[in-house]
């Protein structure tokens, strides 16, 4: 297995290089010279030159040891993304935003996962019954109601009317306090689609011969569902779950905006709103790297849960 992991990690090197090349081509070659965007349409050549000098845009694109690509490569590997357009270091912005984002998305992620897998198992077990139909209707309804409605309702009813949660971020609140309601809303809104998906996965498994055999042998429903069915349904669950993890770092755009959570989702919206290519570039690169890493983890997990998959 160690050899397999090392081999898979080595495979990621050309992928990371590819990501670096792609982000460079996208932001520098296709996107054009950012100095004109920063300086404005009617800037003097001196101003544009000053900006090009500051951001190293006056250097050759590829063919030099001091080229823009090599510098892009170096800065990406050292996580030194330079300064944002508001003159703050990009890496400082990311470091500051990562914890609020994780505080929001990690509980949301586990909450949705555990509740939806458990519910899906139960619903699949009682398939065709009134409870199953009810669950499907509720899931579809949950998926159909706009996300924003949950946010506005949550803010008004649970936070303002009932006073159970803070309405919005405030500097005098702890992180646990200001993410509580958004986490709850995130879990509720995530259940619809996830229960539907896992229900389908569980139904495929529940119809298998080994389940019928297990019941015939007299095993109780809880043991059949949680030990046998769940274990066999792990492949699609792992695929969905592990590949969702990189996105946890990106936070949640809407929740962060409406609750004022100073996370990476908010940072990304800000960067788009202010045409801050330096922040967008850094965030794109980090997301891509995380995606590659978690792809490797997914492959490893496949081998761990499914004995039919060999590391050789």
């Amino acid at each position, binding site marked *: 297995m160690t050899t397999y992991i090392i081999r898979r990690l080595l495979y990621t090197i050309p992928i990371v290089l590819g990501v670096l090349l792609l982000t460079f081509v996208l932001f520098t070659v296709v996107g054009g010279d950012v100095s004109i965007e920063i300086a404005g349409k009617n800037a003097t050549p001196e101003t544009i030159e000053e900006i090009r000098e500051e951001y190293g845009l006056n250097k050759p694109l590829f063919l030099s040891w001091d080229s823009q690509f090599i510098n892009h490569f170096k800065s990406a590997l050292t996580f030194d993304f330079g300064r944002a357009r508001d003159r703050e270091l990009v890496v400082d912005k990311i470091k500051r935003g990562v914890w609020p984002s994780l505080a929001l998305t990690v509980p949301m992620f586990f909450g949705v996962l555990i509740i939806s897998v458990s519910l899906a198992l139960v619903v699949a077990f009682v398939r065709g019954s009134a409870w199953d139909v009810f669950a499907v209707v509720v899931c579809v309804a949950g998926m159909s109601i706009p996300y924003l409605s949950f946010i506005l309702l949550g803010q008004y009813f649970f936070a303002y009317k009932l006073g159970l949660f803070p309405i919005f971020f405030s500097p005098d609140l702890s992180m646990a306090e200001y993410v*509580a309601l958004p986490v709850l809303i995130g879990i509720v809104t995530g259940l619809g689609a996830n229960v539907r998906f896992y229900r389908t996965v569980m139904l495929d498994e529940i119809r298998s011969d080994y389940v019928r055999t297990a019941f015939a042998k007299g095993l109780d429903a809880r043991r059949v569902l949680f030990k046998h069915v769940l274990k066999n349904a792990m492949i699609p669950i792992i695929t969905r779950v592990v590949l969702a993890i990189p996105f946890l770092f990106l936070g949640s755009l809407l929740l962060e905006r409406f609750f004022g959570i100073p996370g990476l989702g908010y940072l990304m919206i800000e960067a788009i709103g202010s045409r801050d290519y330096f922040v967008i570039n850094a965030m794109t690169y980090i997301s891509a790297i995380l995606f590659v890493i978690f792809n490797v983890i997914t492959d490893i997990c496949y081998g761990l849960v499914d004995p039919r998959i060999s590391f050789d």
Partner: protein
Amino acid sequence: MNGRGGAFKFFLFLLLAIMAGCDSSSPGDDSNEMILYANLPTKIRGLDTGDIGDVYSAMIAGQFFECLYQYDYLKRPYEVIPHVAEGMPQISKDGLTYIIKIKKGVYFADDKCFLGGKGRELKSSDFVFAWKRIANIKYFSKNWWVFDGKIVGLDEFREYSKNCKSAADVDYSREVEGLQTPDDYTLVIRLKKAWPQIVYLLAHQPTAPIAKEAVVYYGKDIVNHPVGTGPFKLKVWHRGSYIEMVRNPNYREEFYPSKGEPGDAEGGYLDDVGKRIPMVDRLFFVLIEEDQPRWLQFLRGKIDAASIPKDNYGQAIDVSRDLTPEMKKLNIHLKTFKNPDTFWIGFNMEDDVLGKNKALRKAISYAIDREKYIKVFWNNRDDIAYGFIPPVMKAYNPEISKLGIGYDLEKARHLLKEAETIHGGKLPTLTFSMGGADTLARQIGQFYQRSFKDLGLDIEVAYMDWPTFQDKVKTKSVQMFSLGWVADYPDTESFLQLFYSKNVSPGTNNFNYSNPEFDELYERVAVMPDSPQRTELYRKAELMVIEDCPAAFINHRVAYILHHDWCMNYKPHIFQYGLAKYRRIDMKKRAAYKELLKKVK
């Protein structure tokens, strides 16, 4: 741990984590520190006073920086009084020389840019440095208009800076004849010509002193490091989230004003006479861009004062334009006043399509149903703008509704046909830039898009955050844009200078409008003292602008501000920069609000 037990424990943890979030605190519960909670509706561009040209940045910077003069907090009409100046200026007989004494014992806030991190005493040379810096053409200040053509030798200094390679290469020790500092506490200003508004401008933020050490130490990053002599200093600036300020320990002894106008005593504005300011220890400006959370935070008591969002107007104000019983039960106070401002859709006159096509600009202006706009977005609170002079200014023309441009779709369509002929075919899609991406900004964008669609004109709306928008306007990178102007001083000249050709972007003339006839009139009127003749000329200049139509004037705002009863000394003031030093928080009332809210709900 087996799977089932693990899941149960995780659920328990999750529940506890969420319950930990249940809000049991109220502002001010934890300590006796006097904290003021305010809201920022948009991100700010920067805190370098030399280049601040927008109200939001100025509102924040006003807590850190001080000018030579300021407006009395209580007296009306607004009266200029000394701030860091020792007294009012001594003016020579010809009105061209101003001698200003500076207070002793005024210190900059401690900052690492100073030797040993200790703020030094303010000197007259700090003013000279700040003003030369604005004159430096390589610095691209928005505020050169303040000094342009006014001080002996400063225009020559600007000319000299043209030949320097960059802003940092400019030699600030180069003498400017009209700016002399005989000693550290005396500033002598020699003018080229009469400048009746000079004292107002010396109370205007761009003229605040800057420590050279800060500029040298921080370089371009000075936008993030305000180092001033004001009552507060920056503690945390989390861009995109909040700004925290604390009392500046170096702040000199200043006291709450002792005289106001009739009614101030009854209004409680004289309760703190003679008390040392600032009274609050800490200020939080929290960025809340969306209306609903801002409104709910205010009702919950997490923000001390707020404007009323359009969708909550009915909840706050009744048909007689008074507070609703619900608001009265919460001891909320209402302050309304007409703002000296005008909002418009600006046209970039250097744009190939718009600049040469007056018929097109007029067609756009006639196509906007201002009444509907004010009804839909401002609950019929605002006044329609037919010109740029606001109704609260002395020079406001009572006949302007007949002389200016209003809604007339038929006329607009006729003008559009003419515009197409001038353009030589179908007009291209125009880009309309909005300085905000929140729900209200998007709704306003859609309103205009629809209005112009009815006219037969396609526009694309570009939404961007406030600092980016400001930068784009400053660099002439917009075609049409939604913006406004709030008077910097109580003289209509503050509006007139917006159309003076020497003030084109990066200056305040964002329209990049140029009309020699207007310029000639402006130069004549700018040096005139207040008189009926000057008022007439102001009005003439306004009509000239309306005819050329570099902007479609939309509305003049009427402020409806709500504040909680614990927020004391909340007297409306149209020059709202740096007023936090006068505020006081009644901590007992704030602490009692939670119970009151429960009772009312």
